[in-house]
């Protein structure tokens, strides 16, 4: 930017604000390009594609709402997959939060070896996806797994955790509870940042532990709880590696998650249009559950800086 100084209008070129804006756009340019190519463009394409029948070989054929209609009318597997995913999310997300919060509260006591305990609970979070699934397949192995052999030591009868259609979703939910390291650490940090005056004031009033928890701890933690629930929903609606590796959706489609059904349609049957339509349903599921959370948030999430 050199001075040209021709007319007073060129001042705009020299103004710091204008130059800053240009520089700023240059800085965010990578994101803009990436968005257009890999997010925004594909979003539009996916939406359009969902109204077409396209199996990659012949050119796409306009299909109208047929995909969306056949989801409800003919594709029974779709209904199953929605139900499986919904059950998983509805159970896994809240139970994870309770467990993560419980562990965080425990770690927030005056305990020795905090680093060790925290690592023990956090460690599974770095073992995601395939490796974790493989380990749990071996845990759940009907004859050789540690779960059934451990039960045998206690004199209890083992079950076929991954091949019993009544149990299998529960088994995957238990596996998902193993990966609560991230929400736990977020809760712990929030607990450690808690203003102590509140507790001191409550002590002077003679409040008990339980009432302190419900009157102070929980409201102060509510933004963290809210955040973790939303993130948990986004991740668990998209569950894929666990059913793909552990059960292949079985037995009897009892773990046919939406992500898996979608993957099968797109990459086994090459039904690209139908898979796109399903992806939008997945988005609506995430969006709906998130908006629902935001709607509820006003009632229970407490922001220190005032109402939001």
């Amino acid at each position, binding site marked *: 930017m050199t001075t040209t100084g021709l007319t007073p209008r060129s001042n705009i070129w020299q103004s710091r604000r204008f130059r800053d804006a240009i520089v700023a756009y240059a800085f965010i340019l990578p*994101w803009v390009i990436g968005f257009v190519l890999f997010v925004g463009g*594909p979003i539009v394409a996916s939406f359009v594609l969902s109204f077409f029948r396209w199996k990659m070989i012949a050119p796409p054929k306009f299909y109208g709402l047929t995909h969306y209609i056949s989801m409800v009318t003919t594709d029974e597997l779709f209904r199953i997959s929605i139900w499986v995913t919904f059950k998983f999310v509805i159970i896994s997300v809240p139970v994870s939060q309770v467990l993560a919060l419980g562990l965080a509260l425990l770690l927030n006591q005056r305990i020795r070896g905090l680093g060790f305990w925290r690592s023990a609970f956090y460690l599974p979070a*770095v*073992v995601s996806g395939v490796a974790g699934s493989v380990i749990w397949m071996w845990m759940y192995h009907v004859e050789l797994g*540690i779960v059934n052999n451990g039960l045998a030591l206690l004199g209890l009868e083992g079950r076929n955790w991954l091949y019993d259609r009544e149990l299998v979703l529960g088994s995957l939910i238990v596996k998902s509870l*193993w990966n609560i390291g991230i929400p736990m650490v977020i809760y712990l940090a929030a607990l450690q940042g808690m203003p*102590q005056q509140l507790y001191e004031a409550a002590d*002077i009033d003679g409040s008990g532990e339980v009432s302190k928890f419900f009157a102070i701890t929980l409201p102060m933690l509510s933004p963290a709880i809210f955040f973790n629930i939303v993130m948990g929903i986004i991740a668990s609606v998209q569950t894929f590696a666990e059913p793909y590796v552990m059960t292949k959706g079985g037995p009897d489609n009892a773990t046919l998650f939406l992500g898996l059904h979608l993957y099968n349609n797109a990459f086994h049957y090459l039904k690209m249009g139908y898979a796109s339509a399903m*992806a939008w349903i997945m988005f609506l599921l*995430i969006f709906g559950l998130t908006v629902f959370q935001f709607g509820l948030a006003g009632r229970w999430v407490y922001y220190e800086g005032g109402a939001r």
Partner: protein
Amino acid sequence: MVAGNETVAAPERLHGAAYTRPSRLRTLLIGNRFRTGLVRLIVIYAVLIFSAFLFLLPFYWMVNTALKPSNQVFTLPPTWIPKPVMWSNFLTAFTIQYETDPPVYIYARNTLIVTVNGVVSTIFSSALVAYAFARLEFPGKNVIFLGILSTLMIPFAVVMVPQFIIWGYLNWLDTLWPLMIPHWFGSAWNIFLLRQFFMTIPREYDEAAYLDGASRWHIFIRIILPLSKPALAAVAVFAFVFFWNDFLGPLIILSKPENFTLTLFLANFNVAYRGTPWHLYMAAALIIILPCLVLFFFSQNAFLKGITVTDLKG
């Protein structure tokens, strides 16, 4: 929760005459606000030990199996400690070759390429974008930032099919390019995380440099980035774990075994080695998760700070 604050008024005075000081035994067992009672201590540690036992059990079971000789894998009841310890399982798991499959180091190489590229690209591009949102003013700033955050809600499934088609047109399916290129354009989550961190750096530093005539680019490279090492380390560690474990991306893009990453190798292990030699399977799984575990132990602080740097209060 904090240790003793001696200036607090004596309980007698606060609660009036009806208050009787608790007995020493009671204080020892139940505790008061200055010391944790014995009963409480026992309960806390009991729950801690039990939970840690449950969380570490899968690791124990994996290591135990990985070190067993093959004949002990199928004995009942299982042996709880492998004897003799078969260190050679690790070697076997990584050197057996099934029919025409490539040797395992090929998968490791592919994973390493994707991961290193992922870490470098994520850090660089996300920091660049985050800087603009933390420091510069420009029209549409808030709308664009909101747009970036809202992409977090878009499931990968929505963009997966069109991306797949694009790579097909470019003839890049079954190469590593589709797993490398898209990450040079910033990732929403990391942009958010780094922006939050950059905002905590006092503005005086870059204002001073700006007045001295430094360009924004210089300020970014010479001032902001060096001051952000903890946050960048956190992003690096997260990115490493993410790319190392990534599964769905490689699964849809790669089809020839010589292009596979370690996660694909692990997911196919079952199929490739009929009859599932579980000791080798666990040995392979252990080796594959080891870099992430080691990384976690050496960078715990970066890791944990990274998670919590984002101010959730609002």
